[in-house]
């Protein structure tokens, strides 16, 4: 693909969101959408500018981002480790998997009342919920990835004298990577979802809290701003994951430049 064409295809993805913004602005300006229901994009930007100046926005974004990151690291780390263990060892799988599947079938957001009783509304509660939500997609996809590594390649590694360590690093892990990335992207979605709900219900800081506070005072522009920030953060996380995917899966036919 030539350079200008590539630049154009990168821009393509922005046509729709920007178009929606323009239509929204026009409909608000001519008074078709009342400001009480949905403030115009310019009003949202003004509101954003205000909270940005008084430092509230940065603080809340940072708090939410930090919760998401810590929860993701804990839940994702444990999920990845158990996924590897249960993918590689039948014994470990027999011992753990059915228990984990039972827990998986409880919607983790249903635990909010219990989590508030246990941890109150401080950081632990949110991080716990995020970790729990993120755990399962990472766990299941890691295990599935390891399990579905081409058995013929494993056999090849064995006949060529690879040690167990070499087999893991050079056959199992790279073979499982495409599936692990699917889990990663799915987990990132769950991460924001969990955080939004948790912060909306029980928090004293963060973007969800900011939105709930604004609702109390009927500040629709701040509520809309919060929602947009969530969308941007979610997009940012997904783009990061896709970038990593492209870097790590360059060998995969699906990621090769045509």
């Amino acid at each position: 693909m030539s350079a200008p064409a590539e630049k154009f295809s990168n821009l393509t993805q922005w046509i729709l969101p920007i178009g929606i913004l323009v239509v929204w602005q026009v409909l608000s300006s001519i008074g078709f959408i009342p400001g009480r229901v949905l403030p115009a994009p310019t009003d949202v930007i003004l509101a954003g500018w205000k909270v940005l100046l008084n430092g509230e926005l940065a603080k809340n974004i940072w708090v939410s981002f930090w919760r998401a990151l810590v929860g993701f690291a804990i839940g994702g780390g444990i999920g990845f480790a158990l996924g590897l263990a249960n993918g590689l060892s039948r014994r470990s799988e027999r011992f753990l998997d059915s228990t984990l599947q039972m827990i998986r079938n409880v919607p983790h957001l249903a635990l909010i009342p219990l989590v508030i009783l246990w941890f109150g509304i401080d950081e632990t509660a949110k991080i716990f919920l995020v970790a729990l939500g993120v755990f399962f997609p990472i766990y299941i996809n890691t295990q599935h990835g390891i399990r579905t590594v081409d058995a013929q390649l494993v056999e090849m590694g064995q006949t060529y004298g690879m040690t167990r360590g070499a087999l893991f690093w050079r056959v199992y892990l790279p073979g499982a990577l495409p599936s692990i990335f699917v889990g990663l992207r799915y987990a990132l979605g769950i991460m924001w979802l969990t955080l939004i709900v948790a912060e909306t219900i029980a928090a004293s800081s963060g973007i969800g809290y900011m939105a709930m506070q604004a609702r109390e005072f009927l500040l629709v522009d701040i509520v809309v701003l919060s929602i947009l920030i969530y969308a941007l953060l979610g997009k940012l996380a997904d783009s990061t994951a896709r970038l990593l995917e492209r870097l790590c899966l360059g060998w995969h036919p699906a990621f090769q430049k045509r």
Partner: protein
Amino acid sequence: MTVHALKRFDNVTELAPQALVPADTSRGLSITAQGLEKSFGDNRVLRGLDFHVPAGQFVAIVGRSGCGKSTLLRLLLNLDQASGGQFWFGERNDAKPDKSAVRVMFQEPRLLPWASVLSNVEVGLGDKRGTPEGRALALDALRNVGLETRRDDWPAVLSGGQKQRVALARALVSNPRVLAFDEPLGALDALTRISMQKLLGQVWVDQGFTAIMVTHDVAEAVTLADRVLIIEEGEIAMDLSVDLPRPRERGSVEVAQLEGRILRELFRNSKAGEDA
């Protein structure tokens, strides 16, 4: 003789009339099997095989599908354990050959898709992997199959024949003493197949390893091998030496006659056309 002496793949089709049999077979290891048996449950796949393959010989094992020929190869490669009997490489039955002495080429290339062509060849180096010496050997092996310009490519962009050539380079890079082939050309198109056969014949001549090839293509067996073992229902039904002069032309009268004889043997014990 080292891999350096190999003719480049591009030239192989011209088949320079140099050595047609290995000049030096001392690199090869002999293979001996005594009463080799393998059962899966009640199914006796191999029923006591006895054979001896002298060092440096090219032996083809043919048989109908399900006759146990692939099982035999898996036993030799330690991918399965024998249910009875024993086999060994070399003259003594208590000596284990060096780990990289026995190499295999499968029907599928089995290249690591996430490793470059060169890294895939380096898989065959064993302990020498990651050393400058190993790198040089891998590049040599790649040059000898005519793919040195593709060293940094992913396997996914290669054609089927090119992938098999990388797999061959991987098998040869450690200078094996026994090379086992499990229908290595079965998945290739007819033309690629013929040039690959020439390449296989040439590396065998140049390196003098013992070659043991499982195939269901009788013409391929007759073209390449010194000797053909026919396995039927887990037993050796026929042990035929192929003393035709080399190079052998696919489709020549002698090759066709021998091929016909083997095919008759394969069909003798079955109702005609049962699954052919």
